[in-house]
């Protein structure tokens, strides 16, 4: 294999001085990334309906915000796959769990507002129990229940549910990773296990008695309790900003992790795991930490995504979603954080365009290509092309361009 060191890794490994220089000088791509992200966010805000000239519809602003969340989970995926060599095909389980955790609070509190409002004309003010019962009927009537399940115990606490956004995916990754890594499950076997994990979670959530409304999922998540006086036009901008901020923070964190000596060890594990072990590094602990951090980032991305999507159901966690994620990162270029971001943004936006019915059909006379059906074929074809002709993805092409200019 040719030595195709990503620019980011090359500079992070330390130049002639050897000593670790200031973070931004070591990682010039961070500044470029932040500037691009800032400009994008500013531009989208100025073009939006809520705060700008109204060129972008609110639903398009939401699409952009969601895309930023997908970029964030792509960073998480790149961290674990591109740098640590763990091909996880179950990251959307963490993403979905993050969404469910925040969704519980959103739905509970929103329903509570409605229930309390409906009691306004009642002769006697409702007791807390009555309110709770009414919420139970409202939320769980659809799955034939009225009891609020135990897992909703903290649903009225934003603080606790935010904690769960981080803790639940983190804990699942910790336990799953601990079991898998200590048994030295690697490569394709690990990928299959992660697929099984996300499939099992999805099937479990499909059940009505899972306590999360079965295949109905959680809905109405775009209504933010306490902020109902704000229109969706404005809220969509807030969420765009929050997503951009989270993406920036995720990018910084990931850059720090993969730079320096920790990054050396992690990519060493990717390239030659036994060798790192014989250097005395506890490989399993490193993998577990990277896997868990990555799951937490995915959870946060999900918690920002679903309020913009408005609805979450178990189909979101289906194995295919996580496979798409791997495709985005592969097309963008794994082992390069900006590559993952580019891949996720490009492919998911293209996917929205093609499957949203906006792409013009191509009449061939005997047959009409309708992109809603043919987009996946195109994506698969693109994936094959990238794998064959640009194995380091779009990010790799950028790297080689930069290198030509600065020999």
């Amino acid at each position, binding site marked *: 294999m040719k030595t195709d060191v990503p620019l980011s890794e090359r500079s992070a490994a330390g130049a002639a001085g050897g000593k670790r220089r200031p973070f931004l000088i070591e990682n010039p791509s961070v500044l470029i990334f932040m500037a691009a992200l800032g400009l994008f966010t500013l531009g989208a805000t100025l073009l939006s309906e809520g705060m700008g000239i109204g060129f972008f519809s609110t639903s398009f602003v939401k699409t952009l915000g969601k895309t930023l969340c997908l970029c964030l989970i792509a960073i998480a995926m790149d961290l674990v796959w591109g740098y640590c060599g763990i091909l996880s095909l179950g990251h959307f389980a963490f993403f979905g769990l993050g969404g469910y955790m925040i969704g519980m609070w959103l739905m509970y509190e929103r329903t509570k507002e409605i229930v309390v409002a409906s009691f306004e004309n009642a002769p006697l003010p409702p007791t807390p129990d009555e309110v709770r019962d009414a919420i139970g009927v409202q939320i769980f009537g659809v799955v034939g229940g009225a009891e609020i399940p135990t897992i909703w115990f903290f649903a009225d606490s934003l603080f606790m549910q935010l904690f769960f956004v981080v803790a639940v995916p983190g804990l699942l990754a910790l336990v799953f990773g601990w079991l898998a890594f200590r048994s030295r499950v690697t490569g394709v076997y690990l990928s299959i296990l992660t697929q099984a994990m996300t499939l099992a979670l999805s099937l479990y959530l499909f059940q009505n008695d899972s306590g999360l409304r079965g295949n109905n999922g959680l809905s109405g998540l775009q209504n933010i309790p306490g902020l109902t006086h704000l229109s969706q036009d404005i809220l969509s901008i807030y969420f765009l900003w929050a997503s951009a901020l989270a993406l920036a923070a995720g990018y910084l964190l990931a850059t720090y992790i993969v730079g320096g000596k920790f990054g050396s060890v992690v990519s060493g594990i990717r*390239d030659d795991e036994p060798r790192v072990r014989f*250097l005395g590094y506890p490989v399993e602990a490193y993998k577990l930490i990277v896997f868990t951090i990555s799951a937490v980032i995915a959870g946060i991305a999900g918690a920002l995504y679903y309020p913009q999507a408005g609805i979450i159901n178990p189909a979101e966690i289906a194995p295919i979603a996580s496979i798409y994620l791997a495709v985005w990162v592969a097309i963008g270029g794994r082992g390069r954080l900006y590559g993952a971001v580019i891949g996720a943004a490009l492919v998911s936006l293209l996917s929205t365009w093609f499957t949203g019915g906006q792409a013009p059909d191509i009449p061939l006379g005997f047959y009409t290509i309708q992109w809603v059906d043919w987009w996946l074929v195109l994506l698969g074809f693109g994936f094959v092309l990238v794998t064959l002709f640009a194995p380091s993805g779009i990010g790799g092409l950028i790297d080689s361009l930069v290198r030509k200019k600065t020999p």
Partner: protein
Amino acid sequence: MTALLEVSNVSVAFDGFKAINSLSFEIGRKELRAIIGPNGAGKTTFMDIVTGKTRPDEGTVTYGEDDTKTRNLLRLSESAIARAGIGRKFQRPTVFEHQTVDANLAMALRNRRSPLDVLFYRRTGDDQDRIHEIATEIGLADTLDKSAGTLSHGQKQWLEIGMLLAQDPKLLLVDEPAAGMTLGEREHTTDILKKAAETRAVIVVEHDMEFVRRLDCKVTVLHEGSVLAEGSLDHVTADPDVIEVYLGR
């Protein structure tokens, strides 16, 4: 107890085939030792056992860092054994090709290995000096910034030896260090190994008799998983059993 490593009555079988058959072996704290033997004699399995990659079916392996402290290596994981001070060089040079020579050496440098320590690691002046010192010793001082994948085969071998020196192990296991090296490089390797053995124990597994002769040390001959003969090279090559094993094939 004066031995650094004491292997006694160790046996291991793979699918019924006894790769190691009640092998006993000892090496002192500052000693150079060559292990020779025909293919399948159990040389690599022996190294796998010492470094924790393979668990023996029976027997004990004890490691005495100093006179007061001895440890049962069979209880430790590979990485813990490496941290205890046992370094291993593989037959095929295995350096991290996607990283610079500098990063390769820095990773091997004797420092704390836990994830948190490594995450917040800042390179000290001492570490920097040590890396330069080692790079000079292995002739790679000018290539510190190059990615290891661009090195020649011989240079990769050097880099791997440099990484072992950076680990500063108490026991060094070296598998066929001279493979693919030119005559000059072999001499340099011999010097480095001899010098390393002044302060630590070094075990060299080698096929090449000329190279072993140059090392000028005690030799252990393995055959069918146990020790066939032990002593100076002249002594073992005069042993009728050894002649039988080597020439009778």
